[in-house]
Structures are given as C-alpha cells and as structure tokens.
C-alpha cells in the first residue's frame, strides 16, 4: 500500500470564496457531464414561451394595446426566475439525503461556502436560462426598445429576484427534506407563477383576483422589466405600476431579509 502520510503538500488557508467557487464548479461540471437535465429545462421554458406566445397568445389582448409577444417575454423571464426556486430546493434536499452536505460539514471549510457555492451555481444557471429565453424571444419577434442602461437594469432586477428566491429554496431545502416536500413545491410554484401579471394583465381579471395578481411580488419584477425593455405593460396605472422599478427592487429585498436569516437558522439547526 502506498501512503503519503509524510508528504503533506502545501495547503491553502480556508477561504470561503475559493471554497464556494469549488462547490459552484461542481454544478458547472454537472452541465458538461450530464447536459440532458439542463437542456430539458431550457427546452421546457422555450416550449412554454411558444405555447403562450402562439397557442394562447392570439386570444389574449393586452389592455392599452401592444404586441402580446412583447408583453409576454418579460413575464416568461420572470417565470424562469421563479422556477429556479425548485432546482435550488431539489439540489439542497438531494445533497442532504446523500450525505454530501454532512461530508462538506465534516470538512475544515467555511460553512457559508456550502450555501454560497449553491448560490453561485444557481445564479449561473439562471443567467444561462435568461440568455436562452432572450434568444428565443428575439427569434419570435420580441421587440426591445429600451435603452442599453435600462435593459441592463431589467436583467439585473430579474437576477435580483432570483437571488431572493434562492434563499427561499435554500430554506425550504434545509427545512423540509423529504421527496414529498420537493414535489409539493414543484406543484405550488405554478399557482404562484400564474396568479400574477406574467401572462395576462390583472386588469382583465375579477377585481379581487386582479389585486392578488398585482401584489404578487413577481408581478413587480415583470412590470419593471416591461417598462425597462420598452414593452407594453398592460397596466392602466396605479401606485404599483407607477413605482414598478422601485417595487421590483424592494420585494426581493424583503424576501431576502426574511429568508436569508431563516436559512442561516435552519443551517445552524442541523447541529441540534
């Protein structure tokens, strides 16, 4: 047997950022080694885009006028951010079930790296998802008329929402570890996604339902993105529509302020 006990190579000091990056790289390697999953996810979002754009889109009129495809695209981009929540939660529960989380925890690495590594991987995956939808949207006639700065701000706000939902996914993944919980979330993101202004303007809904849809945090991001991309908003105004960018900045901040501490607490409770 060969041992290297006496050969202790020069070690780097524990560094949360470096460790996070190594854990992020693990997910990036997954894409390379098993691209079917991510590709299926991307195809699914393209399918939804085509379904709403052409199958339902013809029957949907945007209040205040405007092209439905251009109304829809910011909504689809927002939906992709929401769906990211599932993959975050699934990755957390899978690692916990396989004991990988415990192996990481038994190693001399920064505990924040385990969570930050997950964040890095999920944000990277969301950037890719946005890029594919962007391309798909432009191919089917999405018109962007906003200025470059506004477009960059819109993308930033979308990723800001994804960042906030990351903490929801991490919290849920740490707190509810059974496969049933993941399945429940996969179902529950649909009503959250649809009870919003992503596909249809709340103006066209019954009053109470429209109010729910308007106040849905993800609606704020969609409205802000529509404004910034220079797309029809389908909104007749109101306090939310008038402050869309502000709301799109605030909602994710609130979500983060609630769920980041909850995630940290759930992580500490692993030691209980």
């Amino acid at each position, binding site marked *: 047997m060969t041992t290297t006990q006496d050969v202790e190579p020069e070690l*780097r000091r*524990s560094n949360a950022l470096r460790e996070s990056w190594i854990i992020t790289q*693990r997910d990036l390697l997954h894409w390379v080694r098993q691209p079917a999953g991510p590709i299926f996810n991307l195809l699914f979002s393209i399918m939804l885009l085509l379904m709403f754009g052409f199958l339902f889109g013809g029957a949907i009129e945007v209040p205040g006028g405007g092209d439905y495809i251009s109304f829809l695209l910011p909504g689809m981009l927002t939906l992709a951010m929401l769906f990211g929540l599932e993959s975050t939660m699934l990755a957390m529960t899978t690692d916990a079930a396989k004991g990988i989380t*415990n192996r990481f925890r038994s190693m001399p690495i920064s505990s924040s790296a385990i969570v930050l590594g997950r964040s890095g991987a999920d944000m990277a995956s969301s950037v890719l998802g946005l890029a594919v939808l962007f391309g798909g949207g432009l191919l089917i006639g999405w018109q962007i008329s906003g200025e470059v700065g506004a477009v960059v701000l819109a993308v930033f706000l979308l990723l800001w929402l994804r960042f906030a939902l990351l903490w929801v996914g991490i919290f849920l993944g740490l707190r509810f570890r059974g496969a049933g919980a993941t399945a429940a979330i996969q179902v529950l993101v649909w009503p959250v996604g649809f009870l919003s202004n992503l596909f249809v303007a709340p103006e066209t809904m019954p009053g109470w339902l429209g109010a729910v849809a308007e106040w849905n945090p993800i609606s704020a991001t969609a409205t802000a993105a529509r404004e910034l991309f220079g797309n029809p908003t389908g909104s007749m105004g109101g306090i939310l529509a008038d402050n869309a960018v502000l709301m799109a900045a605030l909602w994710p901040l609130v979500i983060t302020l609630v769920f980041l501490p909850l995630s940290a607490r759930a992580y500490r409770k692993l030691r209980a």
Partner: protein
Amino acid sequence: MPTVHSPHQSLTYSLIASGLQKSYGDTHALDGFDLRVAAGSIHGLLGPNGAGKSTAVSALCTLIDVDDGSATVAGLDIRSSGKQVRERIGLVGQAAALDDILGGRQNLVMFGRLFGLRSSAARARADELLHQFGLTDAAERPVSTYSGGMRRRLDIAASLIRTPAVLFLDEPTTGLDPRGRNEVWRAVRQIAESGTTVLLTTQHLDEADQLADRISVMNHGRVIAEGTPKQLKRRLGGGRIEVMLEDGTRLTEAARLLGEALGTTAVVDDYSRTVTLEVPPGGTGLMSVVRVLDGAALTADDIALRRPTLDEVFLALTDMPPAASVADSSPDSADRTAESADNKETP
C-alpha cells in the same frame, strides 16, 4: 495527541469521550457515552439500530452539538476546536456521500481542493488514492455506474485525502454484498496499517471481530461492555456446534460420545436428527467432533459451527433485548436472523 496516565499504564489516545449526553425530546440518543480509543488502533462500536452509534459519530465529528459531557479527537476539544478537529478527521457516513454525476477522479479532486490542496496537488492525490483503492480503471466513469463496493471504496478514499488522524466509518458495509464487504474490510485494514486511528460502527459482531482491536458494545446511548474481541467472546461463550446425523437411531449414543469428548452437555433433537453442543471460544471443538464421529463410524450429513449472534451478545450482556430490532433489509442480516431462529434449543 495527549498522553493519558492511568495508574497502570500510559497510553496515547486519539479519541476520548466522557459522559456525552444528547437528547432529542424524550429520546436520549447519547446517555453518558464514554469511549477511549488508542492511537493507531481500530475500534469497533457495536450495537443495534437506535443504540446511538451514529449520534456518537456525529458528535465526535462535530456535526452536532452535545448537550453535556466532553470529548477530544486527536487531542482537540470537539466543542471549542471544531474546525481544527475537522482538519484531522475523515468521515464515511452511512450513505456514500459522493456526487453521482461526476466521475471518481472528479469527486476526489473536488474534495481535495476543498481540503485546501492546489488543483495540481489535488489531481495527484486523487490518482494516488484511485490507484490505492483499485479504482484507476473506473476513474472517469460517473459514480452512478459504480458497484456498491466501489462506491464505498471511493467514499473511503475521499475521506483519506488529507490522511486523517482519526477516520470514522459509520456502518461502512451496510447494504454491500459479501464481495463488497471484503473489499471494504481490506481497505480498512490498510488504513489502520498506515497509522490512522479508525472508529468503526457496525451492527455485526463478526465485522467487529474481523477488524477491531477493541470493541465497545453500545445500547441505549451508552457503552455497556468494552474489551478485545477475545475478551468479549469469552464473556459470551464460544458458540455451538450442530451435528446432523445420517442415522437418526444413534442420536443418543452420539450425544453421549460428543458430550464426553468436549466436556459439555449435548442437546438432542430427534426431529432434525441434530446434536447441539455448547463449545468454549477458540477451542478445537470441531476437530474433536470429527474425530469422535470417525471413531464411532457415525456419518454426519452436516456439521456447523454457530457463532453468537448480536442478539445473543445483547442477551448475554444486558439480559434484555436490544433497543431496537437488529434486523435490517440487508440479506446478510436476514440470514443472521434465520440463523438465530434455527439456534433455538429444542427441549
């Protein structure tokens, strides 16, 4: 590593736990858990499901906080020096904690870099470990294609990247077929030879017997017996020899001859044509049996040496059944259960 001076001897311990307490609600997973493991030895922690073995390992690996008590691992306090403890240990948990999508080498390189190795050093160490554990040919394949024994070996390799002072193995052979189990046993012996202290939990007496220098028997969150496998077996009695005769009419004669030869009482079961003899540990019982049968021109259909089962260990040590059933879904333990059922003496 601390040197602990006892009145009789001075020994270096890699692992000392005293009075560890850990409760989950009303369940006392650890209830005054004490342990001393000499440096460089293999120590078996033997007990049924629910005895608290995994909780003990989690506490010593600093994965969970204990309610009370103290412990040092490689001379470091688990409560105040968690991170330093984690620099000196390796943990192989019950589930093979590996990334299924990545290849064996990629897994080892990732864990190596997390342990602080530079990429080139991590790759070199990965290749070395793959070679050591006979996984070089499978290095690039995704771990999901590995057999149970291969996964376990890779899992163990991943915990050895930094040559830990103490390696924790939590039921490393659960769910493995006999071949996989032998592969793991070989690996564990190699590790101990290299000077790493090993704490191994198991539900199987023969596993502890095969590997461990000393065994602590655990039940209800505490150690109820401790000693070398030999000492424990002496306390338990050696086992039984069962002789199934071809000729059912000569059972009484055979029982008398065998009983005299082995200095023990023989129990006869007419229905199964079997004579059962209690034998002391480490004796030459089987040899004597063969000699007696041969001398009396008795033909045996079957001669079997039955070792004490974990159930019997617990009965002998506690006079009460273990905290939970020792039966799990592995075929191995199913055999064991069947075996102990067979062992019931017929009046």
